[in-house]
């Protein structure tokens, strides 16, 4: 909070907190160190309120409100630990985990699953994965009624279309972050959008074109914001497939991109002397976490070696 900004006071779980005008309930929760689950929120993107896992109870509001998007206001009374909040968050986590492969979604999600007592298995075993292209051909209103013996799933084969990154939509929770990063929040290329409706909804290129034929410019900013590993460097995908991906053995070194003069900061994720992934710090004023194709993927020249085919 700087001295030119006004502040507002609100109460969260009985504790009063001052935040800058324009800050969200989530900012207030973070200031109070209240662990608030988020999936579709990122500091460098505009909130889209897609996942609903951050909902809180706001006095005077009929429904639960998303903490990530609701601006804090003077005198607000917020509860983050009521049974209603816990129940809602638990159900969101269960529905996501029953239908999506969240095994690459990070430690925080596992912690929230445990904290909220999520039991995704109560919806039954997963339905079989879709065949290639099957989900793209499905349309709302043209489904057989499920018999309830299995949990519906977005399971499907990964789309491996080039050497740079993989779209593994069995891991996609439709948080919209990739769409926002490709769109107005960062890259402004608009190569992808949400297509289809209801449970058929999915991230798609125009007319389901393969990525290399689409408008994609391979900045990889979608990978940078993906919370579940649905979008992944090909190098990470290959390592995981081979069972050699080991974050314990990885170091992260911050340096500056070797190409143009903008001065983008790169975080080089290195495992066994090999760059396996590149990210950029969200809190840096030059990149805000975003890169171009050269910064994201142009590192390979330092490790094309005769002894490493």
């Amino acid at each position, binding site marked *: 909070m700087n001295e030119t900004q006004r502040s507002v006071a609100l109460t969260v779980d009985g504790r009063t907190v001052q935040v800058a005008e324009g800050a969200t309930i989530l900012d207030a929760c973070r200031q109070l160190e209240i662990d608030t689950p988020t999936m579709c929120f990122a500091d460098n993107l505009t909130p889209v309120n897609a996942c609903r896992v951050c909902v809180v109870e706001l006095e005077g509001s009929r429904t639960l409100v998303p903490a990530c998007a609701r601006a804090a206001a003077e005198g607000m009374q917020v509860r983050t630990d009521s049974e209603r909040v816990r129940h809602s968050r638990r159900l969101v986590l269960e529905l996501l985990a029953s239908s999506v492969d969240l095994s690459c979604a990070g430690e925080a999600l596992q912690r929230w699953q445990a904290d909220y007592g999520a039991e995704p298995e109560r919806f039954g075993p997963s339905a079989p994965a879709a065949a290639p292209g099957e989900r793209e051909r499905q349309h709302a209103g043209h489904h057989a009624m499920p018999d309830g013996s299995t949990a519906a799933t977005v399971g499907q084969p990964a789309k491996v279309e080039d050497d740079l990154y993989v779209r593994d939509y069995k891991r996609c929770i439709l948080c919209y972050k990739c769409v926002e990063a490709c769109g107005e929040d960062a890259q402004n290329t608009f190569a992808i959008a949400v297509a289809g409706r209801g449970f058929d909804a999915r991230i798609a290129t125009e007319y389901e074109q393969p990525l290399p034929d689409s408008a994609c410019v391979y900045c990889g900013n979608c990978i940078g914001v993906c919370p579940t590993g649905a979008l992944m460097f090909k190098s990470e995908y290959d390592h995981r497939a081979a069972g050699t991906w080991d974050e314990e053995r990885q170091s992260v070194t911050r340096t500056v991109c070797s190409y143009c*003069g903008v001065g983008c900061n790169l975080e080089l994720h290195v495992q066994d002397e090999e760059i396996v992934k590149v990210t950029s710090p969200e809190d840096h004023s030059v990149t805000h976490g975003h890169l171009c194709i050269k910064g994201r993927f142009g590192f390979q020249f330092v490790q094309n070696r005769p002894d490493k085919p």
Partner: protein
Amino acid sequence: MEDTDLIILWGSNARETHPIFFHHVLKGIHNGARTMVVDPRRTSSAQWADLWLGLDVGSDVALSNAVAREIIAAGLENRAFIEHATTGFDEYRRSVEPFTLARGEELTGVPAEAIRGLAHAYATADRAQLCWTLGITEHHNAVDNVLALINLALLTGHVGRYGSGINPLRGQNNVQGGGDMGALPNKLPGFQDVQNDALRGKFEAAWGVPVPSANGWHLSQMFEAMEHGDLTTLYVIGENPAQSEADGERARALLSGLDHLIVQYIFLPRTAAMADVVLPAAASWAESEGTVTSSERRVQRVRKALSPPGQARDDMAILGDLARLLGHDWGTPSAEQVWDEVRSLSPMHTGMSYARLEAMGGIQWPCPHDRHPGSPILHDRLWRVPLEGPAAPFHALQHRPPVDVLDDQFPLRLTTGRTLDSYNTGVQTGGFRSPIRTGDTVDICPEDGRRLGIDDGERVQVSSRRGALEVRARYVDVLRPGLVFMTLHFPDRVDTNRLTIDAWDQKSGTAEFKATAVRIDKIAAPAGAAH
């Protein structure tokens, strides 16, 4: 950039060549800024613009003069700023007087109404940013082009204020830092003049050796000196001039004629393959420690993440060994120790300790002491009352068209540039397989293609007064008739610099990569080919 009202990109395709800078431009656009792009090609940057000024290659001074004349004729110049902070306005005003809108249109190919539109928008904007890249500087009159844009900023007062400034967008991650560190023929680190006895004396005292007091040569002068036999040994660090110099055949002939060529490089591109001695070097951004300076004068740390392969070593260690063999023991200082020496000798860097660079995410020079926050705005002194330092001079400039003239034999204007996923001679970007790489082509507009009887995708011969090559033609919709485009990214397959001219600017030494006269011919079917 986010908070400005007007963004002008002049000779810059930032959407492709500075993509993350363009993110900031896009934020400005979303916040309501108007955008104007001056570029012979209707680039992907121009496609975001409210107004595109598609000028003829090399007519930038004429366009600037016409813009200035219109601003003055409309009474929109910033009188108060001109009187407070500038000199030479009257002469400048007289020099632009002949450049009416009609004359401007005639010289530049830009419709008078578009020139007027840019002039009025720029002069009346509360805040305006004027940005340029190599479209301004890769000309035989590079410095004039830059001065022409500075004239406009001085005329309107769009300099040295928050949201108003002049921004040369640097093309390489440390081209600014190279200059900062004295990799210029006339400067010591911190842009301290080598001919100034007091400044040079400071370095001599610190280093304990005399420093030559005469200016050295810039790259273009070095090649001239090779031609005259005045330069017989060359030590190249991290450059690939055999492929990156204009008029490549001449450059390679001169390099081959050297008595001794030493190349320090991370790979063996063509220049290194020609060398007598190759010193394998570490990649500075990922295999060693140090700093680089970005386009916005921000000094940032680069760090070692990988061990260099094989016998490759840090540039600094190689230089240290070389110095020792030449009789000077520099010890084995760390990158930070070398940086601290820079800070002790270069006042603009003095406040930039490694600790502060870490803590602040980089610092913009000048930063003269260790409590200084750095300088996001460089020229704010021009607004101080009374004025701090010298007034900024206007420059009266003549329109001097490209050296390589178009005629019946070479009727097409070839201009060169970068594409989004590739970089310079491709040494680095050749290392990854980009799904969007279009490869080596000569881009032409469909009208020219049809007129010349050349199909989209057909292999053709492109010739200039210096050389010829074969390449695939590609129809694109961003070029006007008479203008063709090639990149320099694939020199092993298509050596574009066989075509380019080494006419260079006498002040900056930059060659005119942007303006070559060429012809395009169909390739005759090989004799005896069966049909």
